[in-house]
């Protein structure tokens, strides 16, 4: 390995094959322009090219591939949601994830771990039972388990939780998994690129040309492109794009912070989540503990990190795993979450013809990456919403048909 590395490191011309091309020029026009080269945008491009034969596609990215939520989440994949609409959607995503490594010919380190959502009160046990029944009814493997079962699967846990909030049971979801999140974006990017899609990094969208309620083009810092179809897949950066086309939504941006510990020998097989403690933790294949908490408590468009977060999270982690007292936090970061009032995404057609929205990804976007690509590519190519995303349409707010997923979408609400 060192010799190989040195050969490339010392050569003036860097010849290591790249995963995707970097086209020098934007073309004058494209059939479809996708804003945002995160997992969702690249998956949409990939399935547009693979399943719908639409290859004249440009994916525009302001920074670099996977620089937003795709590379900032805690990489958990699960389908144990609360509403039938949500469960069906995320379950399809898990199915796609399970053979995605083979599909993309790239090791995504997809690792099925089993996912525990701990209950520390009668009220949360009741919600867990509710979720388990909804899940089972819809064919998703999920059940309520007692403390003996948790201890058997995760022997290191202190079920008394330091004495102040003893664990009473848990919702156990065996298909719960973790994956290497940037590889998902790279794999989709490479697959799309091989099929003719152009990925333009460092290309910022500065305006969208709308004529008579119809999209006709996109303005960027590298010139204007003609197109009749634009997909907006920028999650936490959605509101400024929506201002360009004059669409109002309930989206509000809040940062979500996460951190990793120094690498440890493998000891934690499962994914442990506690809503009462505002904590989720899993151990990556590198041995780091990957941890996150609930959203920052107010709106701010910034990916800054705070001491408040890491202090609060460490305290709660020590409640469950007191032996980690000497372990160091290696790094922390934040991503922007575009929150909706019902904790479900906003997907599909909009009042502007040819402008498709894939937003409202709050704290649940990574796990939906493959199914978003599938359903958004269908929606763009057929110009009608895929049945799986019909309940997530933007117009549900004015029709008062919300999809209340707050009880299962994230922790600490």
């Amino acid at each position, binding site marked *: 390995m060192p010799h190989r590395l040195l050969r490339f490191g010392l050569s003036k011309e860097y010849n290591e094959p790249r995963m995707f091309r970097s086209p020098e020029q934007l073309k004058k026009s494209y059939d479809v322009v996708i804003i945002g080269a995160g997992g969702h945008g690249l998956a949409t491009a990939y399935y547009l090219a693979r399943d719908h034969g639409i290859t004249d596609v440009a994916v525009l990215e302001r920074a670099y591939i996977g620089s937003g939520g795709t590379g900032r989440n805690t990489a958990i994949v699960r389908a144990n949601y609360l509403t039938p609409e949500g469960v069906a959607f995320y379950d399809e995503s898990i199915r796609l994830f399970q053979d995605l490594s083979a599909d993309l010919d790239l090791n995504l380190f997809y690792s099925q771990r089993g996912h525990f959502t701990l209950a520390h009160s009668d009220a949360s046990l009741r919600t867990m039972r509710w979720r388990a029944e909804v899940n089972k009814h819809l064919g998703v493997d999920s059940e309520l388990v007692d403390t003996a079962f948790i201890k058997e699967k995760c022997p290191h846990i202190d079920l008394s939780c330091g004495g102040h909030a003893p664990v009473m049971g848990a919702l156990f979801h065996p298909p719960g998994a973790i994956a290497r999140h940037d590889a998902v974006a790279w794999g989709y990017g490479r697959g799309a690129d091989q099929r003719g899609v152009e990925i333009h990094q460092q290309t910022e969208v500065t305006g969208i040309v709308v004529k008579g309620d119809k999209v006709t083009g996109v303005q960027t810092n590298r010139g204007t492109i003609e197109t009749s179809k634009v997909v907006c897949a920028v999650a936490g950066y959605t*509101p400024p794009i929506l201002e360009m086309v004059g669409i109002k939504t309930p989206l509000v*941006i809040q940062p979500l912070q996460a951190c990793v510990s120094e690498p440890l020998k493998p000891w934690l097989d499962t994914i442990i989540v506690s809503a009462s403690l505002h904590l989720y933790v899993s151990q990556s294949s590198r041995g780091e503990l990957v941890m996150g908490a609930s959203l920052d408590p107010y709106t701010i468009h910034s990916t800054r990190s705070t001491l408040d977060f890491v202090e609060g999270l460490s305290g709660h982690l020590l409640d469950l795993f007191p032996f980690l007292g000497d372990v160091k936090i290696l790094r922390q970061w934040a991503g922007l979450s575009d929150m909706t009032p019902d904790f479900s995404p906003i997907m599909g057609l909009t009042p502007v013809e040819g402008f498709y929205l894939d937003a409202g990804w709050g704290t649940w976007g990574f796990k939906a990456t493959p199914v978003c690509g599938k359903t958004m590519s269908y929606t763009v190519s057929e110009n009608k919403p895929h049945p799986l995303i019909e309940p997530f349409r933007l117009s549900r*707010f004015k029709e008062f048909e919300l999809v209340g997923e707050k009880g299962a979408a994230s922790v600490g609400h």
Partner: protein
Amino acid sequence: MKIMTCPVNGPRPLQEFVYGGDVTEMPCPDQVTDEQWAAYVFERDGAPGPHKEWWYHAPSGVWFIAERDTGTDEISNTYLYNG
């Protein structure tokens, strides 16, 4: 430590404050269409920039308005509601 100025208690650490969302004008429920009402209930200005927001000083129970830029997190003014 980040400091916010409560109009009653003066400068206090941010941990003592609770965010209450944007200040919005409630239209008269009897005089608006369902669509206008839905717009009032759900539509938000989510883009970064100056916002007028409700904030609550928890230890003293004071609700007040803060003018804050959600892009830079700079607070330009805080004052009591004068309705």
